[in-house]
């Protein structure tokens, strides 16, 4: 029986091998030199590592675990050195051999798209939500009370003309029904069922008999905000709209009020926002008319409120550069896929 290989000598050989491999591979100037180094150190038949592996078998039993651990460490290290050198020199290593044409198409993933009108509504909802306004919805087929009377629109008002509304052939008793011409109807319904304080945005489809053209469509979307709390003034209205405009358009956006007329608000104003260096009309607003507060059973001496309405198509068109609002309803996927 031959004497066992001393562990010290074995470890020293390993370290020498590691140092030689490091030096050789770091100094390899081309792929051929790297390949020669690979054969010298890792060659399956006569590589130097193979030779040391034989010596591993000659270690004393007690030394074998430590010797084996070191052997594996060095083997791994030399493998890594080789890979680094191959990568550095672009040598035909394993990974590089199967390199792919990265300009080939990826596996297609069909992305869906929300409609730009929905995206605009969501954005308004989100901003108003941060300001404490809750989104509400109500019926599209409405009665005279909710679409007109409670909103202080008298029977003589031109807005009630049969030719200016879509009336249904059916009625509720003697009360004619119509497709709502504004989402303020929802505000009436909420106020009838809840007590102030109240902050809501009502949104959805509304209908008016306009001939369809680039800026009109007989079906469109409105977002209307309503706040009813004691002590509310036009300063609150202006402040909320300024916060809205700044969030929606970005930056510190100024808001301008111009006097206007709506039956359900008094005072009534048109709201302009500064957009792209110009005043752009965004919608109508005003303080809730005392007659409306009375119609829903509130006391106008105790609470006051404001309301505002925005035309969704108009905002969406401007935001996305759509010059014909009929495009929103053509449902051409080449249009829809851009949002």
């Amino acid at each position, binding site marked *: 029986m031959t004497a066992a290989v001393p562990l010290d000598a074995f470890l020293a050989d390993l370290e020498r091998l590691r140092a030689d491999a490091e030096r050789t591979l770091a100094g390899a100037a081309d792929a051929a030199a790297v390949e020669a180094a690979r054969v010298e150190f890792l060659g399956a038949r006569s590589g130097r590592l193979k030779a040391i592996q034989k010596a591993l078998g000659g270690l004393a039993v007690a030394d074998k675990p430590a010797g084996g651990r070191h052997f594996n460490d060095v083997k791994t290290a030399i493998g890594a050195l080789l890979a680094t050198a191959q990568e550095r020199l672009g040598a035909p290593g394993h990974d590089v051999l199967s390199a792919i044409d990265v300009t080939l198409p990826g596996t297609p993933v*069909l992305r869906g798209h929300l409609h730009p009108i929905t995206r605009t509504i969501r954005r308004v909802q989100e901003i108003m939500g941060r300001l404490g306004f809750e*989104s509400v919805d109500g019926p*599209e087929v409405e009665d005279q009370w909710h679409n007109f009377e409670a909103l202080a629109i008298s029977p003589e008002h031109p807005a009630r003309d049969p030719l200016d509304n*879509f*009336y249904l052939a*059916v009625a509720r008793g003697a009360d004619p029904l119509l497709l709502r011409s504004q989402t303020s109807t929802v505000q009436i319904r909420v106020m009838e069922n809840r007590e102030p304080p109240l902050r809501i945005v009502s949104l959805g*489809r509304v*209908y008016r008999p306009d001939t369809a053209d680039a800026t009109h469509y007989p079906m469109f979307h409105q977002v209307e905000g309503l706040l009813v709390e004691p002590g509310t003034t036009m300063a609150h209205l*202006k402040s909320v709209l300024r916060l809205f405009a700044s969030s929606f358009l970005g930056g510190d956006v100024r808001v301008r009020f111009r006097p206007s007329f709506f039956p359900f608000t008094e005072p009534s104003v048109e709201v302009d926002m500064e957009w792209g260096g110009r005043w752009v009309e965004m919608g109508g607003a005003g303080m809730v008319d005392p007659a409306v507060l009375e119609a829903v059973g509130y006391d106008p001496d105790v609470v006051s409120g404001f309301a505002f309405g925005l035309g969704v198509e108009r905002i969406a068109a401007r935001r996305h550069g759509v010059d014909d609002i009929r495009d929103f309803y053509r*449902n051409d996927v080449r249009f829809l896929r851009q949002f």
Partner: protein
Amino acid sequence: MIISTNWLADYVQLPGTVDDLVERLLMSGLNHEATWAVGGDTAVEIEVTSNRPDCLGHIGVAREAAVLYGRPLHVPDPRPLEAGGEAARSVTVVIEAGDVCPFYTARVIRGVRVGPSPAWLVDRLATVGIASVNNVVDVTNYVMLESGQPLHAFDLAKIRGGRIVVRRAVEGEPFTAINHKTYTLSERMAVIADGERPVALAGVMGGADTEIGPETTDVLLESAQFAPLPVRAAARGLALASASSYRFERGPDPAMVDWASRRAAAMILELAGGTLDRGAVAAGVLACAPATIPLVASRVSDVLGVEVPASRQADILTQLGFVEEPGSPDRIRRYRAPSWRRDCWREIDLVEEIARIEGYDRVPEDAVIAARPVELSAREVTLRRAGEVLVGAGLCEAMTRSVVTEASAATPSPWGEADPLVIAPALVRGADRLRRSLLPSLLEARAGNVAAGIDDADLFEIARGYLARRETSAAGPVEEPLLASFVVGGEFARAKGLVDAVLGGLGVAGGTSRLEWRPLDLSPLARGRAAEVRLVRSGHAPARIAVVGEVAAAELGRLGLRGPVSAAELRLDALEFAAALERPLVKPSDFPAVDRDINVVVDASVPWGDVEAAIHAAAGELLDTCRLVQVWEDAERLGAGRKSFVVALTLRSAAGTLSGEEAGRVVDAVVAECGRRVGATLRG
């Protein structure tokens, strides 16, 4: 309303430029449309809101400008010489319908020479876009545009019987207007008649028979009040809107009825000569009752959020023509509204007047709004989740019209058999039915894309349907289900997968609710390739919540679509309950799974759902997943009328590692239950 700046200068001297005037009017309520030059004059088009008929005349606009610039307003006081006989001797006026005409006056001018108008008059009318006709007609137009009070001049010689009768039109009565078109009137409209026939459509347009022409010598000048509704009925019903009807629909200043008559008479005498008969022949009572309105000074800041001193409040109102009642206490002042401001009758109306003249730029924009909690409603949560799933699956959201054609509406609805509701007028040509399902619209939208060369338009929409309720319920005669629908390329399985994903996303099934798929026969879905999904929920009757299927070949052919195309519609309003459900979390097991494949052979008529139910029942909690790998039929190897389901079962316990024996017992139990329930046998 188009104004001439030269004309405006007759009533008020303005120091600024036209642009400055336009800006001030804009910021006080008269919206600017356009400005353009006409000869030596400038035309400014303004938008007048329906509450401000006073600004449908130059004097009214001049009054606004005078207040904005703090300048005096000069309104002429015409006193034409009445050198003729008593007007009432030759003309009688009778109002038969006081509800359509409260007050009517007629003046008579004899011996006029009808001819061209002088250049200044032609020019002024040209600036505001009105062509000159002759001196008499031009004067009536001029005075209307000055005062806002419409006038009409008749050729008195053609008024039969010297009699003016204001009455409702007789249903079907013909009338030829000065545009020489003949209209058929309804009793909702009012006419001016002479002794025999209508000579004018009240408040809208005069008649061809009695118009002023070169041969006219004697003129009957009408200045009257007409109620808005009959005027609108005629203007809208006959598509015959005029400058006159536009003003009467809004209500001119009552004080202008007599003023305009005197003014026009004076101008006709001056420009066409003739002699004015003495007095105006009047009938009815002038409706003019200006309100007296109290104003608490502090009310202004309560509404506006900014102080306006009481003295400034009083100045603004006084300049606008409001008259402060004497003896008002300082805290509460009382104002009588001017005749031309019938829109002002409440305290809030006075606040608005003060605000618009003071300027809204004074209203602060940094008021503090207290934070408030906000929750998304169950409806919002539901429709957003459904949309997210469908967008995630690659579909595009469409928006189609709520109102469809009769043919489109005739497609059966999954949600009710009552006929579609009809509206008038049509939304767009031919579309006058409220839809009961979104599917026909989405199929048409897909077809529209195909026509544009796009074959893969997978579309969804979330919108209402409209269903007539059979009996008049407390909720009203119309039900509006919230529907989510889609139309996609592919076979039934694709649509089913999408429906499963939406229902899964909403968390509808589980706990005490489950879904039930059943075959369905409903056009436009293909027979044998369609299903309904029912929600079975404890405490509720089972209800249809979705329909799914391949679109029938005939429908595809009609629309020019290439199949297979599948579609589905879900009733989201019936699924909103799930938004509030809290599903308890199931902790994933840490123990390894055991996979077992089984191949069960059943009669060809047995649906997979029955086999699946048997597997679930038998395997119980140890069943991790159950995946159908393959279905095949092979008469030779399985026997005629038989089919085989290859099922991959994954078994796993939450309590420990399953042994091979335990797994085997589960599989045995599954096979036994399948045998018991659907006569299944294990193959190979």
